[in-house]
């Protein structure tokens, strides 16, 4: 199927309830597996190159170690009462019908081994309590199904005990890495961050060239010289953004948006080539050491450049890693200006400027767009923005409403804290997992199609690099044009009025430019 097809006729199947429970198909996704990490990818991260001979004993020992180190994990392993509240909450279950994608079943893949080795009943009467030995077959199931969890935490919202499957799946991946059974996509990328500074492997010279191209483009479009500075010592703000913002569409339009906002605010800012990545895939594989090593690059860059503030660009899990963990991983940040949030989200920054009337917009420049907003899972359920509860939901929407006249939310049971994952989060954004990614996107797609039908929605904005790439890739399979997905700051970029700008396409608005 071509990626650029136009919108097809919608079929009745497209209007099923996003929460529709599918028929159960046992083992439907048993063959879905990511490519294994090569020995060189493993070893760079401090893991064995391949499956070690005593993998069983090492796995059991690691499980015990993690459960004693992370109290949350211990509680999650012990407290499930099989109430069933989570069973229909996972987008991968709703999209595939595979019962192992019910969160309780996914957790049980690990929990049954926990019971066998670390509970009294499981040690002596395993058949009574669903305790099981870790066999090679079960290990393969771990590899398959813990890579069908995007760690989006939707299930945990509905669990009466708050059991967080994301933590369970991170632990399972950490155990697998420890015995030499790692996943190529995440581990190759983490290695690149350790050596080059970003997921892409984009070196300073290439980054500089890309930023210069973008400066040229903005000047061509607006007549205004907007800078995208790199490694400028003494800048006040360091922007840490996903490297996809330097490479992919529509991410790069978001980056252009941040640059215009900084410019119009008169801010002194810079990007760092040393910390040219906001993403931290160490979280996806549950590896504290790797996460810390990557977070420390941000600290080193901030100290080296002498900045006073750190602002994060549009990246979902990066904001979780930054908002929830940056201070413990790489703090204290006592050298930064304490009058600002440490770290701050670009949406908080832009929202504040809007509130203070610093930015001027011509909303009519987005009049060809009827917009909705996809809450990214890690922002929605694992972080916050601003100083009020729910700020992570309100602030991006307030920005979008300030720059676009037509905004429509999707069904309430599919947004905000109940949002559905895009289907590509948690380290699954790799081509060999396209089948599970496409199926897992289904609940979100159905909710989107409802607003397309009801309100004529043409675009969906997001603040996560993974979401943007995932939707651009899988939309065509659902008959939706790939450029339906946009960056939040792309919308800002379209509408923002820069001082002294010259636009050849909207003469009618010329007087606005004088204001």
């Amino acid at each position, binding site marked *: 199927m*071509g*990626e*650029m097809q136009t919108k097809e006729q919608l079929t009745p199947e497209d209007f099923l309830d996003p929460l529709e429970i599918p028929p159960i198909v046992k083992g439907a996704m048993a063959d879905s597996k990511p*490519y294994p990490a090569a020995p060189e990818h493993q070893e760079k991260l401090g893991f064995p190159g391949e499956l070690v001979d005593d993998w069983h004993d090492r796995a059991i020992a690691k499980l015990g170690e993690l459960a004693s180190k992370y109290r949350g994990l211990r509680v999650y392993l012990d407290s499930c009462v099989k109430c069933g509240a989570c069973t229909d909450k996972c987008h991968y279950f709703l999209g595939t019908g595979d019962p192992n994608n019910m969160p309780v079943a996914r957790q049980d893949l690990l929990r049954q081994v926990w019971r066998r080795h670390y509970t009294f009943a499981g040690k002596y009467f395993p058949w009574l309590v669903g305790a099981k030995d870790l066999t090679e077959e079960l290990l393969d199931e771990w590899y398959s199904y813990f890579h069908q969890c995007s760690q989006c935490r939707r299930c945990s919202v509905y669990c009466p005990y708050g059991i967080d499957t994301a933590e369970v799946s991170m632990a399972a991946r950490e155990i697998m890495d420890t015995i030499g059974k790692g996943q*190529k*996509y995440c581990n*190759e*990328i983490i290695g*690149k961050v350790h050596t080059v500074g*970003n*997921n*892409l*492997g*984009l*070196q300073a*010279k*290439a980054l500089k*060239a*890309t930023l210069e*191209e*973008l400066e040229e*483009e903005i000047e061509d479009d607006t007549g205004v010289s907007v800078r995208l500075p790199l490694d400028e010592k003494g800048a006040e703000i360091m922007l840490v953004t*996903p*490297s*996809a913002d*330097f*490479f*992919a*569409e529509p*991410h*790069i339009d978001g980056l252009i948006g941040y640059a215009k906002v900084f410019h119009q605010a008169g801010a002194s800012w810079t990007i760092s080539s040393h910390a040219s990545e906001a*993403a931290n895939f160490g979280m996806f594989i549950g590896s504290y050491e790797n996460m810390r090593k990557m977070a420390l690059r941000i600290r080193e860059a901030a100290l080296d450049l002498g900045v006073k503030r750190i602002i994060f660009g549009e*990246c979902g899990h990066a904001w979780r890693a930054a908002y929830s963990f940056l201070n413990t991983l790489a703090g204290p940040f006592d050298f930064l200006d304490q009058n600002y949030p440490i770290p701050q989200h670009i949406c908080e920054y832009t929202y504040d400027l809007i509130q203070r009337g610093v930015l001027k917009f011509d909303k009519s420049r987005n009049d060809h767009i009827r917009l909705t907003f996809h809450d990214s899972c890690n922002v929605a359920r694992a972080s916050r923005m601003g100083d009020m509860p729910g700020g992570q939901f309100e602030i991006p929407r307030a920005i979008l409403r300030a720059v676009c006249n037509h905004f429509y939310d999707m069904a309430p049971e599919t947004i905000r804290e109940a949002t559905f994952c895009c289907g590509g989060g948690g380290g699954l*954004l790799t*081509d*060999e997992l396209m089948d599970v990614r496409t199926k897992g996107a289904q609940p979100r797609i159905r909710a989107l199609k409802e607003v397309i039908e009801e309100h004529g929605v043409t675009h969906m904005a997001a603040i996560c*690099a*993974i979401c*943007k*790439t995932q939707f651009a*890739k899988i939309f065509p399979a659902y008959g939706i044009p*790939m*450029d339906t997905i946009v960056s939040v700051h792309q919308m800002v970029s379209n509408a923002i009025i820069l001082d002294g700008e010259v636009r050849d396409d909207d003469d009618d608005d010329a007087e606005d430019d004088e204001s």
Partner: protein
Amino acid sequence: MGAYVLNGVEIPHDEEGYITDLGNWSKELAVLIAKDENIEMTDEHWEVVNFLREYYEEYQIAPAIRVLVKAIKKSLGKEKGNNKYLYELFPYGPAKQACKIAGLPKPTGCV
């Protein structure tokens, strides 16, 4: 992992068909990889592949889509200098598919 076979010589590639030793690339190999991807190489395809290789030589990475589009606009004209046209040439995405044919590593990350 497998290999392309060109004139009786095996050229290894990774799980996804990206050649593992960039030094093994040749125009003939590009045609072979393209065939595997159901792409018949035309002058326009070569324009993209050649630009990618030149860029890679300078920067050790594939260019941003935006940069590629601009370059193609310069060389092939305005009506071809857009993302849509590049997807017509390389339906699985100009970055990944064209890189594979150009013998460059796959762009990694959230792209």
